[in-house]
């Protein structure tokens, strides 16, 4: 029962909130869709913390795409053994994870100690940081502990197929229930983070400005069709 709730219902509910939440926020609150940069207040700590955190988390995200979406059988088929895969994933993942956590530590320290940044921190930011750090710590902790104790769990046989099964709409909770407790907590925390995502500053991730690489430097646009804040009287519409 709780298994179904946590590993079937929760994912779908969170995914729905994640998707619909973003759509809703984009339509309702384009003006609030920003990084809320605090660099104007303080730049020395940000200069170290923010790139460290971001490069770390982007690497982590990339690792998750690889680990969750690519089935073990595929990597095996191209001749990468589980051992080799794990060694690379573990070392890279730990470096990226520590980078992320270190960067986040600097950012949070900055949020607590630098006056103007402290004043500009909202409740929303605090919830976001608690969830985000929770997910990262659980994930990193599980990985590192598993390896230190010498019995790394092959999550690509449990967590990953379960994750994919959600998207085929044939959720199989028995798969994830076979994974150690650390993994299970990590994914539960992650779903909750995803549910909160659209309502936090994290929406900025989805406007990563890749279009900048291809668009012309200077953008020209026409005036709005409606000038001023009153609707145009019938018969006085502008001719195109």
């Amino acid at each position, binding site marked *: 029962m709780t298994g179904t709730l946590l590993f079937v219902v929760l994912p779908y509910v969170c995914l729905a909130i994640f998707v619909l939440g973003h759509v809703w926020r984009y339509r309702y609150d384009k003006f609030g869709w920003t990084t809320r940069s605090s660099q104007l207040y303080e730049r020395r700590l940000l200069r170290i913390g923010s790139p460290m955190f971001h490069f770390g988390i982007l690497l982590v995200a990339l690792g998750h795409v690889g680990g969750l979406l690519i089935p073990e059988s595929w990597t095996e088929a191209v001749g990468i053994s589980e051992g080799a895969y794990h060694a690379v994933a573990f070392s890279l993942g730990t470096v990226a994870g520590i980078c992320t956590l270190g960067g986040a530590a600097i950012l949070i320290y900055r949020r607590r100690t630098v006056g103007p940044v402290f004043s500009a921190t909202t409740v929303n930011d605090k919830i976001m940081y608690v969830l985000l750090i929770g997910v990262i710590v659980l994930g990193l902790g599980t990985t590192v502990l598993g390896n230190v104790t010498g019995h790394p769990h092959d999550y690509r046989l449990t967590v990953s197929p379960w994750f994919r099964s959600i998207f085929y709409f044939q959720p199989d909770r028995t798969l994830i229930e076979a994974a150690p407790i650390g993994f299970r907590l990590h994914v539960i925390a992650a779903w909750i983070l995803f549910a909160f995502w659209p309502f936090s500053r994290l929406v900025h991730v989805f406007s990563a*400005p890749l279009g900048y690489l291809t668009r012309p430097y200077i953008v020209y*646009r026409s005036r709005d069709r409606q000038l001023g804040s009153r609707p145009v009287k019938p018969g006085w519409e502008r001719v195109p």
Partner: protein
Amino acid sequence: MRVMAQMAMVMNLDKCIGCHTCSVTCKQAWTNRSGVEYVWFNNVETRPGQGYPRRYEDQEKWKGGWTLNRRGRLALKGGGRIKKLFSIFSNPKMPAIADYYEPWTYDYENLTNAPLQEHTPVARPKSLLTGEDMKISWSANWDDNLGGSPDHGDKDVLLKGIADKVKFEFEQTFMFYLPRICEHCLNPSCAASCPSGAIYKRAEDGIVLVDQDRCRGWRMCVSGCPYKKIYFNHRTGKAEKCTFCFPRIEVGIPTVCSETCVGRLRYIGLMLYDADRVLDAASTEDEHGLYEAQRDVFLDPSDPAVIAAAEQAGIPRDWIEAAQRSPVYALINRFKVALPLHPEYRTMPMVWYIPPLSPVVDVVRDTGYDAEDKGNLFAAIEALRIPIDYLAQLFTAGDPAPVDLVLRRLAAMRSYMRDINLGRDPDESIPAAVGLTGQEMYDMYRLLALAKYDERYVIPPAHAEQAHSLEELATECSLDYDGGPGMGGSGPFGEQSGSPMPIAVENFHMLVDRQTSDTMVDSGNKELRVNLLNWDGKGRPEGLFPPRDERR
């Protein structure tokens, strides 16, 4: 030829008295909200001086604007697209609030609430960023009128070459004011630096705007603009800039700064230019050639070929006529007395300046000679190398020749007009000496000295047939700061999130609330608080005054 129209401005620096009226009215109209306390779309700098933000002209440090790369092609000085994306997590060239100043208010409440005491209570300064007590040490015009220049006068970026030559000789001889707004550049590096493409140039009138719904707060434009005329709203997390008062321009009235200018020194008009030639002009190799190159981009609105091309490009007839009457065109291309600010940034700025002759005149007068005699003035221009070099650094990338010519023309105009005013025969050799005819000189005099409102501002409305219905007083409540008595709201995701409220609707609700509510306004209810701008002085709006004590 691709004809485009650009709303442009010229300021006649001789007439600026440094009163800051333009800055204050602009602030009152546009940036009196929280998050933009330190933002001055219009600021007035005393020159020599550091400017605002401090030393913004030091492009070796800030890397704003464009530069020519090794292959001679135009490139962003702050680095190309890839470099921008890699440094997006922390912009290495972004100015800190200390480079502007920490905004503050005063603890006025203490003046009325302090208990009876021996000493007069004071209103202590409180930081608007942290709410803590603070020590005020800088502001947007801290070095106004050369204040404190023994301490920091040498920090003016343009004095790098000149300072050691004659240390502060200019201090006695030479000071003027430089009002600055966004240049609404033809080749805006702010727009080019924006990763999300939120900054755009309006195709109709060339006004450069930030789309607030598309800005994502990457803050690359702040460092991209060499004039530092993009500001970051630290509450909403979005960039803001001078809008050239587009709602006013659209209905044919001048910007707030121009309208209120005490010296009546601002001119607004259209320039037609050839968009196909902008890039070439901005890539001119020799920096000294940039001024001429930009002038060449402008098209003569009376040339039949230009008119035909403009009509083909969809520019309305009344706009072409306005371009023909444009005072800006006359000052830039007919009389050639207006110069661009820092053309070496290669953004092709469109707010131009008539450099001040008055420092020269003052020197001549102080020596007891006739300050309106052409010979004396010409000699003084010749002798005052330092001011002229300084002006050249501002307006012509250091080339003194154009500045020299402008000052000579202004000096010649003084002498020529004196003869006419005194009823003597005009001396036609005077205009000839500076390459003008007598009639041209007289026209120039008219434009500089007498021009009335509708000659100084030739602004065709966006759509004449709509102009009347568009006219409305579009101002936001000046008290609309967080926790203040204004009525702005905070959405669920922080300051001012949620869909924007049309200004007219907001006022409507305010009025309805005021007429229908009969209780004291709940001070926690931001919607209901009194909007002073709506109060016409009649009656007692609820909530403006504490309730009357009935017993008295």
